[in-house]
C-alpha cells in the first residue's frame, strides 16, 4: 500500500494561532498533567492506608511550599479540564460550533477555571 502521496496535516508552525486552538492544546496538556497528578493521589491514599507515620510524611511533602505550588497548578488543571470537558460534551450534542460561540465558550473556560481555583484555595485556607 502506497501512503507517501497522502495529504499531510500542516504543522503547528504553519497554522495561524487562534484562541480555540490554544484552548484545545491546553485541554490535552491539562489532561496529561492530571495523569501525573494521579500518582500523588495514589501515594496519598496508600500512605493513609499504611498508617499515621507514612501519612504524616506524605502530608509534609504535600504541605510544603513546592507541594502547595504543584497542588495549586493541579487544581487549575482539574477545573480547566472539567470546564472544557463540559464544553466538549455540549459539542457532542451538536451545539456551540459557530466560530464566535466556540471562541466565547473557550474564553469562559480559563476564566471559570481561574476563579474556581482561587475560590477553592481561599476556602481551603479558611477550613484549616
Amino acid at each position: 500500500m502506497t501512503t507517501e502521496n497522502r495529504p499531510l496535516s500542516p504543522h503547528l508552525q504553519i497554522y495561524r494561532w487562534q484562541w480555540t486552538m490554544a484552548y484545545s492544546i491546553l485541554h490535552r496538556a491539562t489532561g496529561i498533567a492530571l495523569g501525573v497528578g494521579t500518582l500523588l493521589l495514589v501515594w496519598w491514599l496508600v500512605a493513609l492506608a499504611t498508617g499515621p507515620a507514612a501519612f504524616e510524611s506524605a502530608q509534609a511533602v504535600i504541605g510544603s511550599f513546592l507541594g502547595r505550588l504543584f497542588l495549586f497548578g493541579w487544581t487549575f488543571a482539574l477545573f480547566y479540564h472539567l470546564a472544557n470537558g463540559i464544553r466538549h460534551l455540549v459539542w457532542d450534542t451538536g451545539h456551540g460550533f459557530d466560530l464566535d460561540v466556540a471562541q466565547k465558550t473557550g474564553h469562559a473556560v480559563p476564566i471559570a477555571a481561574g476563579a474556581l481555583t482561587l475560590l477553592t484555595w481561599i476556602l481551603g485556607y479558611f477550613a484549616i
Partner: protein
Amino acid sequence: MTPVACKTTGDKQMSLKTPLGQVRGLGSARSGTHHWWMQRVTAVALVPLTLWFIYSMVGHAGAGHGEMARWLASPFNAIMMVLLIGATFHHLQLGLQVVVEDYIHSEAAKVAVMLVVKLASVALAVAAVFAVLKVAFTA
C-alpha cells in the same frame, strides 16, 4: 462476527442493521465507536465525582491521619472514592492512548509506551482501591 446482512437491489442498499450497528466493530482497531463512547461515559461520571472530591479535600485541608481515615471509612465516602478512582483511571488510559497514537510513530515505541500506560493505569487503580478498602474496613 456475522457479516452485515445486506442485499443490493439496483443502487439501493438494504440492511436490517441500524446505522450504529453497521459501524460497531469497524475502524482500524476493530472497536468502532467504543473508545469514543467510553471516554464520554467516564467524562460524564467524572463531573459530579470530581466536584465531590474537590469539596471533600477543601473540607479536610491539613487534616491528620485519624480524621482523614475516619472520613474515608464512611461507606458513602469510600464508595465515592472507589468510583472516582475507577472513572479517573479508565478515562486517563483512554486519553493517554490517543496522545500516544498521535505523537509516537515508531511501532515498537508505540506498543511499549501503550503497554506502560495501560498496565500502570490498572496497577495504580488497584493500589488506590486497595488502600481505600483497607482504610474503610480497618479504621
